[in-house]
């Protein structure tokens, strides 16, 4: 393989990578799930570093409110409402024409996750919700593919690499996703750009270590970062693998087999989609209403909270955790708004 020694010269000079490491990067295949703030930073790093094949997966469209932090998009992408995967592809292609970039406009679900993730050497997490991370974890453990979890909201974030069979998987540490509507999302609590860049850069460096074969250098801690109010701390997870972990211990891939996670049901054929959690939740409706008021118009009574996500689309949440997304018949739009405002 011919290595462009000018383009990658500074990275080759970095001794732990060198010419051999650069060759390995050029021969590597990476999938990035989610092309929001984390995903765009991750893709930027992978493409500039010369990872030979980068697949970028996203279900969403570029909006003006993304531009504050999602580094691959510009005003023309937002004005056109271009799919993020395509907009990212266009920006990335201009950065590095010597590698392959594959945009995929899709919602990662249990039906397509193995097809999209099992033919790569590494998966990077740029997603915006808990459910999909458990799905990524299932696929990666099942196919022994390393992945790097990262999350960021407000001014805090967290990251940890997962080497299946070697380090704890996500389910060794968290057995299930939190109840819908109980956690912060960027659309309810806000987010500042720097936390995302910091988290994604930590993820990217672990990716580089894994891809060049420096497994002994891979972080064995779960890193917690607070950029505004508190500092940085970490937990040593080198002994936290659980023999009874349902996923990496017992080989049960509940999220991939759709036994866990949200079930999505389309109602009435047109313009209303119901998303019901797999187990009922006792939703604190007044607290949900209060949180959503930060983001738009809310009408609430003791049975439900109606939130106007856009002029056309309303999210109606009931006390048992069911959400009706009214005003769309597009499943991925419904799931995207649910993840943004209710959290999943």
């Amino acid at each position, binding site marked *: 393989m011919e290595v462009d020694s000018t383009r990658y010269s500074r990275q080759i000079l970095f001794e732990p990578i060198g010419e051999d490491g650069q060759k390995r990067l050029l021969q590597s295949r990476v999938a990035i799930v*989610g092309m*929001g*703030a*984390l*995903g765009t930073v991750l893709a930027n790093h992978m493409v500039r570093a010369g990872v030979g094949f980068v697949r970028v997966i996203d279900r969403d469209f570029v909006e003006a409110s993304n531009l504050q932090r999602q580094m691959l998009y510009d005003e023309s992408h937002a004005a056109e409402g271009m799919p993020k995967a395509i907009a990212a592809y266009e920006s990335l292609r201009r950065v590095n024409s010597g590698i392959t970039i594959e945009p995929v406009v899709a919602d990662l679900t249990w039906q397509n996750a193995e097809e999209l993730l099992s033919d790569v050497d590494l998966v990077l*997490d*740029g*997603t*915006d*919700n*808990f459910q999909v991370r458990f799905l990524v974890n299932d696929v990666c453990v099942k196919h022994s593919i390393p992945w790097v979890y*990262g*999350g*960021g*909201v*407000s001014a*805090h*974030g*967290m990251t940890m690499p997962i080497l299946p069979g070697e380090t704890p998987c996500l389910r060794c*540490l*968290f*057995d*299930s*996703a*939190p*109840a819908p509507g*109980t*956690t*912060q*999302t*960027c*659309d309810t*609590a806000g*987010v500042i750009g720097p936390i*995302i860049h910091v*988290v994604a850069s930590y993820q990217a460096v672990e990716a580089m270590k894994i891809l060049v074969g420096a497994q002994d250098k891979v972080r064995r801690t*779960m*890193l*917690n970062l607070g950029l505004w109010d*508190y*500092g940085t*701390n*970490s*937990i*040593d*997870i080198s*002994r*936290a693998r659980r023999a009874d972990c349902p996923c990496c211990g017992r080989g049960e891939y509940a999220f991939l087999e759709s036994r866990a996670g949200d079930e999505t049901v389309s109602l009435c054929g047109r313009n209303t989609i119901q998303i019901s959690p797999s187990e009922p939740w006792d939703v604190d409706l007044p607290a949900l209403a209060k949180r959503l008021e930060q983001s738009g118009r809310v009408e609430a009574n003791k049975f439900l909270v109606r939130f106007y996500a856009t002029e056309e689309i309303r999210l109606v949440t009931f006390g048992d955790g069911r959400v009706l997304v009214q005003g769309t018949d597009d499943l991925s739009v419904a799931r995207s708004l649910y993840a*943004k405002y209710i*959290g*999943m």
Partner: protein
Amino acid sequence: MKLIINGQEREIDHAQTLADVVAHFNLNERIVVIEHNLNIIPRELYTETVVVAGDKIEIVHFVGGGC
């Protein structure tokens, strides 16, 4: 009682177990991992894990966003 939480000394009254610490900070149990004196404690053991003054507790949150 003084505990060292995420590297900072914090005064917490009436805390006898990790479950009391979780309640004190109003933590969502499903999305935190707690390390007590360098051991990760499974959440089913919070109620029986006794804390004493000077204990080192690290709390990290599972963060959902990324958007």
